[in-house]
Structure formats: C-alpha cells, structure tokens
C-alpha cells in the first residue's frame, strides 16, 4: 500500500524541478551570462562566436541577420543552463521509473508490493481547502487508480524523452533554462489532471496546462510572423490557443456547475457509482439534464483536444518549438480531453446514449475534416498537427462508440488504447520533424518547414528517416505495429455497433491518413528518383540548400526509443480489462481472423500505394502541375488547403463580431460608466464650491445660523406639540 501511497511524489516531482530551475539554476545561468558579457566587454553574444573554435554547433548560430527570429542565441550554454536541463531530466527519469514500476506492479507483470490496487483506486493526497457546513468541502484531492496509472506512464515517459531531446534541440537558445522550467511546469500540470480526484482539481490542472501551453507556444518571444507561409507570430498563436481553450472551458464550467447543483459534490468517486451523492441518485428521472451537463463537460474536451469547431488553435500552435509540439500538442495535453471523458465515463453512462453519440459524431467529423485538410498542407508540422486532430477524433469515436454500444462492456478501453499508442508514435513523428528542422537550420541558417524545400533527406539523416518511417507505418495501421491494433479496434467497434455511417467515415479516414502521412514522408525524405523507388532519398533529389547533417545523439536516442515503443506499445492486450473490470480483452486471434480487419488494412494499403505512386513515381512537381491545370482539382486543392475556409471564417467573426461587441462595450464603459464616476466627482466639487460660502468668518453670521436653527426647531416642536395635544390652551 505504501508503494502506491507514495505516488504523490511523482506528482510533485516536476513541480520541484520547476522550483529548482526557476530559483536556482536559472538564476545561476542569468548571472553567468551577464558576467560573461560584462567580462568580454561585448554586449552582443553574437560577437563572441568569431573567437570560438568551430567544433561546437554554436558558431552556426552566431550569424546575425540571416536568422529569422530575433530571440537571443548563445554560442555555448553556461553551466547553470546545462544544469537546468540535467535537473529536469534526472527528476523526470526518477518519476518515470517509479511510474513504470507502479504500472507493472498493478498489472501483475512484476510483483513489487504485495498490494493489489482496487479498481476504484486510493486517495493519495488530500488537502481541505475550504469547508463550510452548508457547502461541499473544497478539497485538493489526488487519486490513483488504473486509468491514472496508464495515463501517468504515458505522460512521464513522453516527458522524459522530450526533455532529453530538448537538450539537443534547444542547445543554442539563450532561454534554455526558462524552457526547461516551463516544461516542468507543464508536466506538473498534466499530472494534476491525471491524478485529480474531483472536478475542481481537474479544472485547476486544465487551466494550468493551458497556461503552460501559452508560455511554451509563445516561447520565442521576438519571432516574427511569416504571412507568405501563412504562419502567425508565436505570441499571437499562444494567445489564440489560450482563448479558444477558454471558450471550451465555459461549457466545461457550466457542466460542472449543473452537476454540483444537483448532487452537491465534485468528487468523481462520489458522482460515479450508486452512492447518495451520485448522479444516478439525483438525476434519476432527469436524464435530459444530465445529458446536457455531460455534453457541456465535453465542450471542455472539444476546446482542449482541438475538435471541430474549436480546432483552429492547434495548427497555429506549431509555432512553438518542436519539442513543445511533441509533448503538448501531440502526446499529452490534447489527450487531456480524452482522459477527462474517460475519467467521467460512468457519468456519461448514467446519462444514456445521447451524450455518447454526440462524442462519437464530433470525433468522426473532426477526424474526417482534419484528414481532408492534411491532404494538401505544405508545412511539415502542420500536416502532423492535422494528423493529431484526426487521431484525437478517432479517440473520441472510440470512447463514444464504446459508450452507446455495449455500455456495460468495454468502458473507456478503446479510446484510451488509441491514446496510449498515439502518444508514442505522434511524439516520434514530431521529434523526427524537429530533427529535420534542426538540421536544415544548421544547413541553411533559416527555419525551413516547407516540404517543398525538402526532399531526399533520408540520405542525409538515415536514423531520423527510419524512425519516421516506422511511425508513419504505425499511424497508417500497418499490420502488427501499434497503430494497427488500436485503430482497427475502433473501426471494428464502429462496425459492430451497427452505425454504418461511423464505420464508413472511420474507414475512409484511415485510408486518407495513410495517404497523407506517406505523402509527407516521401516528399520530405524520399522523392522521385530516390532509392527504393522513391521511398528512400538520395542527395540529388534534395530541393533545398546546403547539406543537412544528422542530429546529435541527444536527439536520436529518443527517436529510437520511441520507435521501439511505437511498435510494441500495441501489445498490451490486457488494457481493456485493466481499465474496466467488465471488459473483455482484445484477442489477437479474433482480430486476425476477422475479414473486416483486413478490409481496413487494404484501405490503408490503397492510401499508401496512391501516395507512393504520386510522390515517388510521378513526382511532386508534376503532381503540382496537373492539379493547377485542372479546374476541379484546383478547386478541391484550394478548399482543403484553406482548411475549408474555417480559419478565415473565424478570423472574420473575431474581427467583426467579437471585437465589434468589445468596442461597443468599451464605448459604453468610457462614456457612461466613466461619465457617472466623473459626474459624481464633479457634483461633489461643485457642491463644495457652493457650500464654502457659508464660511464667512463673521461671528454674527454663525449666530444667525445658531439662533435661526433654534427658532425653527422651537416653532416646529411647539406647533407640532400643540396640535398633537389637541389645540392650544388659553387661559
């Protein structure tokens, strides 16, 4: 029991690392840098580079003017900065090891403690924040159970690999220590969500991850926008992310309020089940209200997990550094929405099937939309962003279908399974993209993210290419890789549930996924004329400038580890039963012998083949020409490239409707509210100006006042008294 009881250390470990970095190593770093600059007599660190030898990577970054961003670079990191990275990595390593041990112990694979964690879990930390007798107690309570353990492993593992990777990626950034502190803050926030035992704490974590995301997306403070590539400033993208999340949070809060109003508690354990404060007791006859509440709670997930209609922030969030994209916007934060729905799964069950159908359909629509848009994107990271949105849609489809079909059965299993595998392969995809971008930056001194300037990179960076290929195969559903199991489970579940529309959408999206992912792979790493019929690259077909090197070890080791995880993470067949006691597990036999599974594989293979043919044999330039010349194709291309004009619609809405209302409100505030305030002040001073004339300085006028008052009072009193007592008395 103690083994599980101490898991709160996992929660507070990244907070510790945040505090240590902010107050310790970062201070050291800042002090060292100013001493360095002062000692050398030079204000710009750029000048130092010419004096350095050329063995470090630093000198490449010391060239001002050719870099796109204005954020300060340093040729070599100070000890304080390096220590920040080590602190974060070591603490996260310990937390990750502990969480893996916990997971292995609880599944029974490795018996360390003799304790069996019950399905309902145990509370590991409780702080009573406020308690009034007539209110439910507001507690900061953390809780660990199977779902939390599964998610925690994902979060800590991916965080660890991303921290390790960032040591290489951010090696020349002056804000290195700040980056690690923000990463630690993010991991802490995510773990708050994972461990949360009631709605209040999960909301705190929700907002904290929003904050961390804001800080990390806008990490490059001075970077400019690139309108010709349709990319905004990172600062703008950060603000957009935060605000769109907040829009989702409005629904979330209202949903929480409805639940609290009826049941009087926020606690998940109390709300689920059949206790006195559960939703089953309080919403017994009123499942419509519960459905509304759960749909509103799902709104929070729509915002956080970038589903349609709140999806516009995630592609723009790619403006942040790539490790951030890998950690936050692929593996963990955007999965917080899925986790929250999984956590509140019993509440959804109690509300009937409507909420689940909403979840599933929004997921399906999002999956399809994002897949269509990703077909024609030219920015490497944006393809991956839309792919993330699409896969999140799959997760919600998995959750929703497992809800309305066979609700006593699978529980949150399929959705969470896809989350589990997706975290690994999506992180791998993003880290690989980061590796490419990092190396092209070395080669060209510019930030190159456009796929049209890449090509044949597999010859230059073979490890990156190979791991990226593994991830691409996984996401496409290549048999016996991880994605195959998770995705085909969901597609199969759609078929079994009888909802043919969902089945067709998910199957079609799988094909589209294969197509656009292989398109991205081939355009970047391979190309027409390369080795292996265009699947592997060669130096001749590189369309850019310079000679990109392979990444350093700190970046390639995480890629390899994640590649291994992408293949083998799918083999945890016991996940369904682990998460939900009544579920039956996937059995490999059933999956392989079902013909519809192979139908899914065939569809994916068709997508792969189309991509290979178009981009490996026909070639990017020729495809481009054909599309431009054909009216219909051009129209379709424009439509998907401009994201079905949804982004433009949102910008128009914001500019004219929201800001218009804001201007009206501001005018109201300025003229009326300020007018009232100023008017009151004006009235007071005017009154003062008038009243001061009573101060004449002459005693006689004061006597007038005194006796005049006496006379008036006397008359009033006597007259009133006389007439109250019934007339005067004469003698």
């Amino acid at each position, binding site marked *: 029991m103690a083994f599980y009881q101490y898991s709160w250390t996992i929660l507070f470990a990244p907070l510790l690392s945040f505090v240590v970095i902010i107050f310790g190593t970062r201070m050291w770093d800042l002090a060292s840098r100013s001493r360095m600059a002062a000692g050398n007599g030079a204000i710009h660190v750029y000048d130092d580079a010419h004096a350095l030898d050329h063995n470090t990577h630093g000198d490449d970054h010391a060239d001002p003017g050719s870099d796109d961003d204005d954020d300060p670079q340093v040729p070599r990191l100070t000890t304080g900065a390096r220590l920040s990275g080590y602190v974060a990595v070591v603490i996260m390593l310990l937390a990750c090891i502990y969480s893996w041990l916990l997971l292995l112990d609880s599944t029974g694979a490795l018996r360390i403690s003799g304790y069996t964690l019950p399905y309902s879990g145990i509370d590991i930390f409780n702080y009573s924040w406020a308690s009034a007798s007539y209110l439910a107690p507001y507690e900061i309570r953390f809780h660990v159970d199977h779902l939390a353990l599964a998610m925690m492993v994902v979060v800590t593992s991916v965080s660890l690999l991303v921290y390790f990777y960032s040591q290489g990626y951010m090696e020349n950034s002056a804000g290195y220590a700040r980056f690690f502190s923000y990463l630690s803050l993010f991991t802490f926030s995510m773990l708050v969500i994972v461990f949360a035992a009631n709605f209040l704490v999960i909301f705190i974590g929700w907002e904290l991850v929003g904050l961390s995301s804001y800080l990390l997306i806008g990490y490059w403070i001075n970077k400019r926008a690139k309108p010709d590539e349709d990319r905004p400033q990172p600062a703008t993208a950060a603000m957009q992310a935060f605000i769109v999340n907040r829009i989702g949070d409005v629904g979330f809060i209202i949903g929480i309020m409805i639940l609290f109003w009826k049941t009087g508690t926020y606690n998940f354990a109390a709300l689920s089940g059949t206790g006195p404060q559960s939703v089953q007791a309080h919403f017994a006859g009123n499942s419509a209200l519960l459905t509304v509440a759960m749909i509103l709670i799902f709104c929070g997930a729509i915002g956080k997990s970038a589903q349609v209609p709140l999806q516009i922030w995630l592609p723009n969030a790619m403006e942040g550094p790539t490790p951030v994209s890998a950690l936050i916007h692929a593996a963990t934060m955007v999965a917080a929405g899925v986790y929250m729905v999984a956590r509140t799964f019993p509440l959804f069950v109690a509300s009937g099937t409507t909420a689940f159908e909403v979840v599933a359909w929004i997921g399906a629509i999002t999956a399809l939309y994002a897949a269509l848009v990703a077909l024609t994107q030219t920015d490497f990271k944006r393809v991956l962003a839309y792919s993330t949105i699409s896969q999140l849609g799959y997760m919600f489809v998995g959750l929703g279908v497992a809800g309305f079909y066979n609700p006593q059965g699978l529980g949150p299993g399929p959705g969470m399974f896809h989350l589990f595998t997706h975290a690994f392969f999506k992180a791998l995809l993003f880290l690989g993209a980061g590796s490419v971008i990092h190396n092209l930056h070395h080669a060209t001194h510019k930030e190159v993210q456009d796929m049209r300037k890449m090509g044949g990179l597999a010859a230059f960076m073979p490890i990156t290419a190979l791991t990226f290929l593994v991830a691409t195969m996984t996401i496409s559903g290549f048999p016996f890789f991880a994605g195959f199991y998770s995705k085909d489970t969901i597609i199969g579940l759609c078929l079994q549930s009888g909802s043919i529309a969902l089945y067709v959408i998910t199957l079609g999206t799988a094909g589209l996924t294969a197509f656009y992912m292989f398109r991205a792979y081939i355009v970047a790493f391979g190309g027409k004329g390369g080795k292996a019929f265009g699947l592997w690259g060669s130096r001749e077909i590189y369309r850019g400038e310079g000679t990109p090197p392979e990444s350093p070890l700190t970046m390639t080791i995480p890629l390899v580890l994640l590649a291994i995880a992408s293949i083998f993470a799918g083999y945890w067949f016991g996940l369904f039963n682990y998460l939900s006691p009544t579920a039956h597990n996937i059995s490999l036999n059933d999956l392989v012998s079902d013909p519809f599974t192979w139908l899914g594989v065939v569809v994916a293979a068709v997508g792969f083949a189309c991509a290979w043919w178009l981009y490996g044999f026909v070639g990017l330039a020729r495809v481009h020409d054909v599309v431009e010349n054909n009216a219909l194709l051009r129209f379709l291309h424009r439509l998907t490239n401009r994201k079905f004009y949804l982004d433009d619609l949102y910008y128009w809405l914001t500019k004219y409707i929201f800001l218009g209302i804001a201007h009206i409100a501001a005018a109201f505030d300025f003229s009326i509210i300020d007018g009232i305030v100023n008017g009151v002040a004006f009235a007071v001073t005017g009154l003062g100006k008038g009243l001061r004339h009573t101060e004449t300085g002459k005693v006689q006028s004061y006597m007038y006042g005194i006796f005049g008052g006496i006379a008036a009072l*006397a008359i009033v009193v*006597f007259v009133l008294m*006389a007439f109250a007592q019934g007339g005067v008395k004469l003698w």
Partner: protein
Amino acid sequence: MATLVFWVVAIILVGSALWVVSARRIVHSALGLFVVFAMASGIFLLLNAEFIAIVQILIYAGAVTILILFALMLTRVSNPNQDTNPNSKGWLAALVMSALVAAGVVFASTFARSSTSLLGGRTPYGAGACPLPPNNVIYIGQLLYSPTCYSYVLPFEIASLVLLVAIVGAIVIGRED
C-alpha cells in the same frame, strides 16, 4: 403694591433694553445698559432674592458697566458725533429671527399645554437637612458653603477657578507687546 412696582420696573426694563439696542451712539447704549441692570435688580427684589439683587448691583451695574465704559473709551472712533453704533446689513433678518425666538419662548410659557400652572402660588422655603435660616443671605451662604447640609460648595470652587482663568486670560490677551 407689588403689582404696581412690578409693572413699573418691567416697563422701564424693557424700554431701556430697547434703547440699548437702538441708540445712535454707543455710550448711550452703555448708559441704557446700566439702567437695565438696575431694573433687573429690582425684579430680583420682587422675587425675594435679596442677595441676588445686591450682587447684581455690585457686579453688573457696578463692575461690568464701568468695564464697558472703559472699553468704549479705549476703542473710540475718531468722530464722536457720527453713528458709533451702526446696524449690520442683515438687521431685518435679525429682527425677524429674534422675534421668532422670543415668540417661541413666550408661546412655550403661556399657551402651550405643557406650561406651568398659571395660578401657581408660592410656598415658603421648605426645610432642608439644616434648620431653616432666617433670611435669604444666610440661606444662600448656607447653600454655597455648608459642609454638613446640602450645599453647592463644589461648583463654588470651580467658579473660583473660572475666575482665576479669566483674570489670567484677560491680562495675557490685553497685554501690549
């Protein structure tokens, strides 16, 4: 007899008070004031307050009048024939106001139901804890100083302190430096 004395004294009192406030020259006002004090002393005599009457003459008619006359001498305006006792600009308002105040008090003491009995007779002095003194002066002396009977000796001591402060204050204020 007492009635006649009362009416004569009262009429002279009110008349000289009116002269005080309306005389053209302020020295005439001071003389009128002297008459007011004297007539007030007469009223006190009518009310069997012999000691008060004598004290009134001594202090008011004697000391205060002389004091005022001295002050008038020391603050003389240059031309003695002009109006040395002018009215201020708001004299009509003052008239109205004082008439109202007086009317209020008169009303309270005559017409109001709560006023005292108009036929109130007088009773002789009641006996206190001490034996009844033969005349007013001795009685007042007893009331002011007696250590054994009911007395007002403490206010008396405080009044002496007030006089001390007034003496010192008048000297300090009136200093020339």
